[in-house]
Structures are given as structure tokens and as C-alpha cells.
């Protein structure tokens, strides 16, 4: 129980900051919606091909916007040197990781809740099915876990803005493929059985990286 309250305290700190300056969530939503809108203009969409290419565009937008959000989430910590303070806290560092990852997860979930209806409107597709919510949660979960590790890694690197996407995007590629396939299953009105394998794969990805990230994160910070 003590562990949970520590994790929540760290996530709550980030949520409170976010509630006051609205830096991360707004930028993620704005960027993702902009990507969707640009694609609507750039690609000649018909009602048929919107259902086929839409899912890929949606998740490309979410992944790119997620990278900018992750950069912001850690930039504020390094700019004001608050990360050092966090490290000095007398708590185990895997709990610090889980707290930061929970914060990112909540931001991204909130952002996705706004992005999805916009996607449905712009691409004229029906997405309100349980698979969509399941893959949304699994994809955001995996993004948050992997993204938090890589954002912490690249916090002290030159050219952080390019280093984070270079590390993050290839590693989450399998999760991205799963998200696109499940979303395509929804927009093309296929049975959930056709995409069950992808949901399983996304869950496996999350489980593996949840363990790997929690184990390796403390090793990244020891000095």
C-alpha cells in the first residue's frame, strides 16, 4: 500500500503541474489533430480508402504527438533541475519510474479520448467498439512505459528532440502495428476474432516491457 501511495504521489505531482500550465496534454492533442487534418488534405480520401488508411494515419499521429509530449514531460524536470530533487527522495527508484509512467499514461489517455472522436469525424468511420478501447489502453500503456524509460535516458543528451523519437519509434513498432491492425479491424467492421491475436500481442509487449523497464530504470540513474 505504501508503494502505491508513493507512485500516486509522484503521478499526482505531474497531474497538478499539468493542470496548472496545460503544457503536455494540449500540445499532444493539438499536434495529433493537426497531423490528422494535414493527412485529410494531403491524401485523396474516399469513404472506402479512409477506412483502410485511416487507422495508420491515426496511430502515426498519436505516436508522433506522443514523442513531443514525452519530450515536454521530461524537459520541465531537467530545465528546473527538479529531477535531481526527485532522485533525492528517499524512495525506491522503480517506484519513481512507475509514478512518472503513470503520469504519462494518464496524460496520453486523456489526449487519446479527445483525438479518437476527432479521428472518427474527420475520416467518417465508426470506432466505438470494445476492441478500440482495449487497444487504446494497451497502446498507450506500452507507449508510456517505453517512452518514460527513453525520455529519462535522453534527458541529458544533446539533440534530445531527435534522440527520443529515434529510440522510441523503432522499439514500439510492433505495438504500432498491433494498434493499426486492430483499429483497421474496427473501421472495416471485421469480427473481433480476426484481431484477437493482435490484442494478445500488444498485451504481451506491454507485459514484457513493463518488467524490463521497471528492472532497468534504476540502473539508468545511479551515479
Amino acid at each position: 500500500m505504501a508503494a502505491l501511495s508513493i507512485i500516486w504521489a509522484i503521478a499526482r505531482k505531474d497531474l497538478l503541474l499539468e493542470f496548472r500550465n496545460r503544457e503536455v496534454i494540449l500540445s499532444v492533442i493539438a499536434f495529433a489533430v493537426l497531423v490528422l487534418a494535414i493527412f485529410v488534405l494531403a491524401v485523396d480520401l474516399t469513404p472506402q480508402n479512409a477506412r483502410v488508411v485511416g487507422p495508420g494515419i491515426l496511430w502515426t499521429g498519436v505516436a508522433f504527438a506522443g514523442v513531443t509530449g514525452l519530450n515536454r514531460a521530461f524537459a520541465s524536470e531537467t530545465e528546473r533541475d527538479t529531477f535531481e530533487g526527485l532522485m533525492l527522495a528517499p524512495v525506491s527508484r522503480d517506484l519513481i519510474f512507475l509514478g512518472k509512467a503513470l503520469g504519462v499514461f494518464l496524460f496520453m489517455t486523456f489526449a487519446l479520448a479527445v483525438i479518437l472522436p476527432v479521428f472518427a469525424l474527420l475520416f467518417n468511420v465508426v470506432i466505438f467498439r470494445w476492441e478500440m478501447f482495449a487497444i487504446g489502453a494497451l497502446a498507450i500503456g506500452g507507449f508510456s512505459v517505453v517512452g518514460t524509460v527513453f525520455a529519462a535516458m535522453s534527458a541529458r543528451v544533446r539533440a534530445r528532440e531527435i534522440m527520443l523519437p529515434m529510440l522510441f519509434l523503432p522499439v514500439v513498432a510492433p505495438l504500432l502495428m498491433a494498434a493499426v491492425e486492430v483499429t483497421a479491424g474496427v473501421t472495416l467492421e471485421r469480427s473481433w476474432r480476426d484481431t484477437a491475436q493482435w490484442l494478445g500481442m500488444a498485451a504481451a509487449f506491454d507485459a514484457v516491457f513493463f518488467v524490463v523497464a521497471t528492472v532497468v530504470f534504476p540502473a539508468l540513474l545511479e551515479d
Partner: protein
Amino acid sequence: MLRTILSRNLFLAVTAGMTVLTLWMVFIWAPTETEQGNIYRSLFFHVPLAWVSMVSIVGVAVASLAYIRFKDIRLDRLAVAMAETGVVCGALMLLTGMMWARPVWETWWTGEAKLTTALIMFFIYVAYLMFRSYHPAGAQRQRIAAVIAVIGAVDSLIIYVAADLWQRAHPPIILGPAGGKDGAIASQFGLTLLVAVIAFTLLYAFVASERYRIRSAEDDVVELRRLADASEGERS
């Protein structure tokens, strides 16, 4: 000292000999394949390059895990040497593969599972090397780089599963002489391929070991400069 130089030159001589033998076998000894024509000879480079790229991924991951455990700088140098050599081999593997695929599959690139996996892994190791050159030098860089290598190796398995699932959902369009079937490999082809794999493994080991040596020298230079700066500071 003399013994190291001798053994290194012997290593180089054996590698060079095997390389020449491979070139002779590939371009003169092995007969032309009936369906694919001469382009099939690029496979004698492509397959060994793919093999050493795979060896690199495993080697870098093992060296990195050992570095995290034992904190020995030599393991870190070994990981860098293998990663750099592996990325070069990976790039050549992708290029030779495309050169072969264009006439034989009638496409440069498809969503085939091994291709997708190879490409994504290539990007992960490029990012690994970028990280190493952007992060300030020191123990922290080595530790984080080791973690990236381990994450990359774990990810390679998941990427392969995903790419395989993806391929079943979107069968790649493969036409041309080798479309949809695996060519039988005759004994002459098999022997040439075996010799090529051995030659490339030796070449890879030689280049990686040279890179390792240079890396050690680089570390020595950094250390000497640090000492020189420190003594300068004491004098002034």
C-alpha cells in the same frame, strides 16, 4: 607485443585468403542458376551479411548484459565494436537483398517478416550508435547504452512475431522467377555459401577486433588528456 602483431597479421592473412577463395568460388566456380541467372550470386554476400548482423545483435546484447553486471570497460568496448561493424554489415545486407529482390521478386521491398524485422532492428542499432555519440562520455553513457542494447535484443523477438502476423494478414506480392517458392540449393551452391559464411565471419571478427583496439586507444587518449589537464590545473 611481437606475438600480438604476428597473430594479428596471421589472422589478417587467413581472412584475406578466405575472402579471395570466396570471390573465386562465387564468381567463377559456382555455376549460373538456371531460373534466376547471375543475380543469384548476390545471395553469397547477402546471406553471410545477414548472419553476421544477427551475430552482432546477440553479441552486443550479451556484452551489454555482462557490462551491466560486471562494469568492465572492456565489455563496453566490445559492444561498441560489434555494434558498429554490425550496422555496416546490416546496411550492406539490406542493399544486397534489394538488389537481388528487384529482378527475382520484381520488387525492391515487401512486407515480408524477415525484411521488416531487419529494417527495424537496423534503425534500433543506428539509434544506439547515435545515442553513444550524443551522450556526454562517462560511466552513465556506457550504462544507458547497455540498457538500449538489451531492450533492442528483447524487442527483436517481439518485432519478428508482429512482422510475421502482419505478413499473414497482408501477404507480400512476390512475382518473378523465385516468386512463392524456395529454390533448391545444389551441392556447389551449398559449399560456396558455406565458404562465404566462414569468410565473412572471419572478416567481421577481424574488423570488430581492430575497432576494439582503436576504441581502447581512444579511451587512453581521453584518460591521458584528463590527467594532463589535471596536472596543468595543479601547476597554475
